[in-house]
């Protein structure tokens, strides 16, 4: 049975078609990469899935339930958690308190939430920074915190919006390992990513968007060889390189 089923998803901003009749399906345990050039509509898809925007047309079924029209907090409680591309920590709270706020969704008692938050903070490798104020973290640590908060809501599907952006090679490697472990732990992951190496290494399947429409999908190897994808990213002349 599929965990996520999206059909005919459409969103317009005035005259601009941000997402055009997108079909998407994810199996339980899958890691799906969502890629595409800037402005392709990837983040809009995330906003539609997580309830921050409502679609003009189309259906989103999560775990067999239609979630169109639900509020973000309701969707989160159903088990779909997202991160933000531009991280949004609570700057005046410590790392562990940030995560605790998220854990309270599942553990209403403060002591339980704190316990659960500590475990998640350790899991993402922020244990040494647990008491630090979130406002003072490095970008790499803030990305980890963003991930930790989403994890603390105990999702079955995790939407990760560019968790590698702005990280250096070593940090990316660590983040790839972390996301792999999370997925291995049974959480399905939908991944928006510009770092091709990371997305190719992580994804079981990849969907490519361009100007709001799905232009290709398949295994990382298939997608990388697809001329429509190369055209979208680099322009037509790279599909048929001029003979020397």
């Amino acid at each position, binding site marked *: 049975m599929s965990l996520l089923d999206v059909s005919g998803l459409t969103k317009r901003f005035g005259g601009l078609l941000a997402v055009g009749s997108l079909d998407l399906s994810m199996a339980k345990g899958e890691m799906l990469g969502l890629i595409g050039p800037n402005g392709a509509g990837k983040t809009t898809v995330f906003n539609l899935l997580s309830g921050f925007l409502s679609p003009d047309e189309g259906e989103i079924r999560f775990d067999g339930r239609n979630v169109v029209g639900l509020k973000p907090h309701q969707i989160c409680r159903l088990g779909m958690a997202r991160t933000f591309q531009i991280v*949004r920590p609570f700057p005046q709270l410590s790392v562990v308190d940030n995560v605790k*706020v998220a854990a309270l969704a599942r553990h209403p008692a403060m002591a339980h939430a704190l316990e659960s938050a500590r475990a998640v903070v350790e899991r993402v490798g922020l244990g040494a920074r647990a008491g630090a104020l979130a406002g003072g973290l490095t970008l790499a640590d803030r990305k980890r915190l963003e991930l930790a908060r989403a994890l603390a809501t105990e999702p079955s599907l995790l939407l990760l919006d560019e968790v590698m952006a702005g990280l250096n090679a070593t940090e990316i490697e660590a983040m790839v390992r972390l996301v792999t472990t999370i997925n291995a732990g049974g959480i399905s992951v939908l991944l928006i990513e510009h770092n091709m190496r990371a997305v190719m290494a992580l994804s079981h399947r990849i969907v490519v968007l361009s100007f709001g429409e799905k232009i290709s999908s398949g295994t990382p190897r298939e997608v990388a060889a697809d001329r429509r994808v190369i055209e979208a990213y680099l322009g037509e002349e790279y599909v048929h390189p001029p003979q020397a």
Partner: protein
Amino acid sequence: MKLLLLLAVVVLAALPWFVGSYLITVMIFIFFYAYLGQAWNIVGGYAGQLSAGHAAFVGIGGYAAALLSAHAGLSPWLGMWIGGGLAALLGAVIGYLGFRFGLRGFYFVLLTVAFAEICRVIALNVDAVGGALGLYITFTGNPRQFQFQDNRAYYYVALALMLGATAAVRAIETHRFGAYLTAIRQDESACEALGIDTLRVKMQAMVLSSFLTGVGGTFYAFYLFSLQPNAVFGIPLSVEIIIRPIVGGAGTVMGPILGSFILSPLAEISRSYFAQGGWNGLHLIVYGVLLIAVVLFLPQGAYPALRRLLRGRPA
């Protein structure tokens, strides 16, 4: 710390038997404004929703209790809960309009001020509630009618109000509700993404805050024995309510109390001294200067700064 607090409560409880009536009056104002500040603190401090019209709730609560007492013979001891309930109802209306339609920052401030002004204009023009003359309460000195011969009784009621509200805020802070309020103040969208029903949580804060403020209205009415529309619904009272928690530290348990201990005596002293010298209204300039100083030097208020100071120098 706990011992220190207990000691402070004991000292405050014993105080009226050792000091003169003027100081008792000053202390009553300190407690009462700390109570109002604490009520505001829930929605304005913790949740970060800047209501600048909390006077409306004082007025509604005071008018309700006074009118029920005068026309229905209902004891203000019961009327205060009805007044609080009506204030909470108004708080729910204002909160829903503001939160449901996403009014933030200045726009929410304007909305709350507008509602307080509407209340003021209604009270000024409806003769059934006293109109421009206001309401006067006949003094009977009957404790059942929330009236006391001895100023010390008002002192203890005001002290109980302050301590009760403070205990409530302390309880909020240590539970999920408080954690959610603090998070909402910092980033609402992030809260939604983390499964928090931000509309509901903000509504709860607004209703609780306006209820407590409305309860305070009864004390106001039956301590001063008069309700004047311009005084109880006016912007100056809203400012008095807000300024103490901000100076003391908005979003902290002790902030409103500390703020009231700093500002209420200052207001009282400057009011009486400046007024005697023919300098009416000069205390407002003192407020302004103090507010500017706090914003510049202690943007989080006096209490967080004091706590840092105490922790920074181990005894």
